[in-house]
């Protein structure tokens, strides 16, 4: 099961037949395992990873990391506030952090203004938020194991080995 997940994490478009061949299972077994992983919510979704630098005909987006210092609630800790934050469609990722601040919010917007407005009007005004610090992303080198800045090429020259 773990092997099938690993294969899908690397390439979600692998066919059930290929996964079956690669893991020495029958196609039916693999289909059943994947169906179960989906039903159990282990596999949440299949998506494409797009390199924004190479995306054509799309207006460039602005990405920022917002560091929030917050006051946890007595009964719910950080979860209640986090719940309010991640529901905004502008929020791409949200993490509870140790260290100098509490919540790390990754925001995507059309422009600097849009992100700045979102932070000042929506995030900083939430009850419990004590401070915000906005850092804009200038370039993505690597995200979730995927390198954005170089092409993988097979450079092997045939030799005698």
């Amino acid at each position, binding site marked *: 099961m773990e*092997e099938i997940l690993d294969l899908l994490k690397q390439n979600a478009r692998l066919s059930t037949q290929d996964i079956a*061949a690669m893991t020495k299972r029958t196609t039916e077994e693999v289909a059943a395992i994947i169906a179960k992983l989906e039903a159990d919510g282990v596999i949440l979704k299949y998506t494409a990873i797009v390199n924004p630098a190479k995306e054509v005909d799309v207006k460039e987006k602005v990405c920022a990391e917002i560091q929030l210092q917050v006051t946890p609630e007595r009964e719910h800790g950080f979860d209640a506030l986090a719940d309010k934050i991640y529901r905004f469609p502008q929020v791409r990722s949200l993490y509870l952090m140790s260290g100098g601040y509490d919540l790390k919010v990754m925001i995507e917007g059309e422009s600097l203004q849009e992100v700045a407005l979102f932070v000042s009007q929506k995030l900083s005004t939430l009850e419990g938020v004590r401070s915000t610090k906005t850092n804009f992303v200038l370039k993505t080198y690597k995200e979730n194991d995927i390198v954005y800045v170089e092409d993988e090429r097979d450079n092997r*020259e045939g030799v005698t*080995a």
Partner: protein
Amino acid sequence: MNTRKDRFSEKMLQTQPSPIRKFFDLCIGHDDIISLGVGEPDFSTPWTIREEAFYHLEKGHTSYTSNWGLLELREEIAKYLTKYNLDYNPTNEILVTVGASEGVDAVLRTILNPGDELIICEPCYVSYQPLTTLCDAKVIHFDTSKTGFYPTAEELEKVITPKTKAIMLCSPSNPTGRMCPADELEKIAELVKKHQIWCISDEIYCELVYDDNEHVSIGSFPGMKDYTIVLNGFSKAFAMTGWRIGFLAAPKELVSELHKLHQYNVICAPIFSQYGAIEGLRNGWAEVEKMRVSYRQRRNLMYKAFNDMGLPVVEPQGAFYMFPDIRSTGLSSDDFATQLIEKYKVAVVPGSAFGEAGEGFIRCCYATDINKIKTAMENIAEFVKSCRK
């Protein structure tokens, strides 16, 4: 130009270039050809190893090292070898070589006298035979194709003569990926001791072993250290082919002789490669495992494809090669490979490149992108179908 008839050595003139080369030459300038002919990983060297080499280059560590290799590396190698129950002294029983390839040559030149016989288990890697011939020794071609591509003690004993100096083993094998079972190795070990011959054990693929198979070194059987020369290296497991770094482990009397040749020939292995190898042995294992799993998955994919197209193939247990039987097509392995590349744009190596025992087979390397493997398999299937019509 020097026109003297004898301007070249007779021996070198008679030496043939690697037969694998020919098929790569056919690929040159054809980007549409999918090559299953290469004999190396499709991964780059793990970053931690590359980064370690940069560090040492930056620090100006660019000198020769001890002829034996950095002691620090030999100590790591000694530690590593205990994994296979091999116990070697890093100060005088381990030598760092320029790839396992240099080791093959150095060992043969250290042990062979003119007229000596070397038993080579075929099909086998392309360098064994020419390097033996260059020593004026006689190659005894030992055919393993009828015993599952590994030697059996029973068959081996039949070809042992008083002139037999050594047996050359490679498990897991290039080009078949097959391994010699431990109980068979044990019997071969007895044979080696009984007849007082060397066993040269090429273990370069020992980290790339799949399923429940476990690598066993023939040197680990009782009393076998005195008769065994272990050849190994970093090229395959750590994807370090271009670094040219390997090692050998053998009794100190042998290494002390061999070391002279190594000294005059190469002085030492490149220093930054040695530092890279140290890093690999210390911190590279998680990456080795990732690569191993990926090779296994691709082996399974290719194995099923050959079964589906009806080409018999013994399942490889290690390395990254598959050796299907193409005799049902009625073509020689050379014709098969030539026509396949010309008509169907797939490069493989004809089995005959690995000795006569490989005739009727082709070597396909599965250290290649999954989609390329799939396309190549479709093309081979079509070609096979057209041959059988």
